[in-house]
Structure formats: C-alpha cells, structure tokens
C-alpha cells in the first residue's frame, strides 16, 4: 500500500535542519539512572571478578557447575550446594564478527563477541564476552582462550574487569 504512495503528508525534516538550527526543537536528555539489585549469587560473582577470578556454583544432586553462579539449581530447583572457583580459561562455543556498535554505527574493525565455555563448569556452561589479540579470520569454535584482566587497582566488580579473552598458544593449557 505505502509503496505506491509517493508523497506523504507532513513536513519532512533532515538532520541538517536540526544541526543548522533551521527549525525550533527541544532536545531532552532524560534522567534514567537505575540501581539493579545484584542478588546474592551475582553479588558474590561481581566481588570475585574484582578479586580476579571467576565464580560458579555447584549442585551436588545434579552434579552441575554453572557460571554465573545461582542460588537455585535450574534442574532440580533445590538450593545449590557451594560456590566453586573456576579457571579463567575456556573454549569458544560460538562467536560473531560484529561490524556495528550497540547504537548502530558502522565500524571497520569488528567487535568479537563470543560465548566461552569456562573450564571447570559443566559442558556447555559459559559466559558471553569479547575476544581480543586475535585475527578475526582465525577464530573458530573450539578455540582455547584465556581471560585478560584489568590491573587489580582498576577493577570495579564488573564483567568488564575482564578486558577480553585471548587465544591460548600451543602448549599452554
């Protein structure tokens, strides 16, 4: 229907009309601050990141180790039994080469998001993060990677305390 229409009613505006102040408009920046309760398990996970390690949780009944940690087991709905300190190495489960930023700007060097199965967690359990120090062409599923951390004094208890995961070289475990 609309593809047959050539002239729409209304007043078309261009970006330049705003930039060159040809039209009157009000630019609003909404104050949208929020505080998201971390909960028990994620709070401990963030505290662990600040201290430079990854934390999972373990269910004895199901023999599952998950990361990020949870207080309740997803399979048996019982409380998880313990926190487990995990390695900061893992295996690329899936990845993408992303040529747009979160606010849809084109970039030449791709971002490299990947899901990484963390060593010590149950198979197929891992976290999403970025890859770095790697030729995008060489990324493959099953690639072994290791976390690159911020220096301890710059860590703030956030997933970004890990800068990215870089490939492990031959011989490293």
């Amino acid at each position, binding site marked *: 229907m609309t593809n047959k229409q050539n002239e729409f009613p209304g*007043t078309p*505006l261009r970006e330049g009309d*705003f930039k060159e102040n040809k*039209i*009157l*408009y*009000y*630019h*609003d*920046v*909404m104050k*949208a*601050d*929020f*505080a*998201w*309760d*971390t909960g*028990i*398990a994620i*709070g*401990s996970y*963030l*505290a662990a990141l600040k201290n430079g390690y990854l934390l999972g*949780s373990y269910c004895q009944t199901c023999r599952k180790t998950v990361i990020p940690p949870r*207080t309740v087991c997803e399979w048996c709905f019982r*409380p*998880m*039994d*313990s*926190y487990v300190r995990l390695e900061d190495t893992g295996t690329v489960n899936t990845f993408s080469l992303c040529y747009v930023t979160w606010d849809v700007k084109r970039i030449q060097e791709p971002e490299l998001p990947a899901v990484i199965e963390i060593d010590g967690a149950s198979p197929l359990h891992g976290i999403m993060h970025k890859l770095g120090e790697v030729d995008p062409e060489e990324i493959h599923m099953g690639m072994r990677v290791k976390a690159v951390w911020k220096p301890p004094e710059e860590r703030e*208890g956030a997933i970004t305390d890990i800068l990215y995961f870089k490939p492990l070289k031959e011989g490293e475990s």
Partner: protein
Amino acid sequence: MSLLERDSLAPNAWLGNLPVTSRYTAGVAGERFFRAIQDEGKILGTKCEYCDITYVPGRIFCERCLAELNDWQDVGTVGEVYTFTLLYENLDGTHRDEPLVVAFIRIADGGLIHQLGEVDLENLSIGMPVEAAFKPQADREGSIKDIEYFRPLPT
C-alpha cells in the same frame, strides 16, 4: 559461606544509566508561534471564523470543526490569571524559601502556563491582569522561556 547469605563485601546493586535522549520539534504552528515571540515579541493566536474561537498558542487546525486555520492574529501580551499555584519545592525535591509562582494565563480563548514575577504574594488573585515580560531580543532563542515571566499590569 552459605549460598543463601549475602557476601557483605559484594556490591548490593549494579548502578547504571540509560542514555535516553529525544527531540521534540515545535511543528508548523509552534515554529510560527515561537518565531513571533523571538523576533517580534508578539504572542500569536489563530482564529476559527466558523467557531468564533481564537486559539492561543496558535494552531493549524480547529479542534472543534477540524478546519484548517490560517488567520494568524496578534493577541497582545496581556492576559489574566486563570489559576495559579505556589511551588515551595524544586524539580529535584529540594526546598525553596521563595515560592515559584506558576499560573495559567488566559489569553483570548486559550492561554499559556508560565511563571509570575515581580508579584506580591499577598495580592495575588485569580482574574488579575498580567503582561508578558520578554527577555532582551539578543537573549531570545525561540522558546517559551523568551518570556521571562508574566507580571502584574501597572495600575
């Protein structure tokens, strides 16, 4: 440490902020209305001949009969206080000692919500005539704030 206990050293909350921005354009009628304030220090309305109503601020169609309105009229800068309120709180919730006087000022068949200034709180009353106090032309930027406030007409 039990899994059901909060780690006292762990952060309780994740603090963040959403980058929400917007542009609200004045529109065809708003453009004309605010430009008149900015360039000429005039308040414009539009008149619907059929309904005998003069809208302030001016708009491009009649709300009652939906006719297009082209009859722009200078409605003057004097109106009367239709209703008012005293604000003892700022936008951020902090207390203010001197209240902000906000009023709806009736002009022709419409009106504007604006501040009152140079006004004695004791003598504030509904129906009192007020006139627009414009900023100096150089400081105007095509906004409702080009009118600094409305003040009582000298008697």
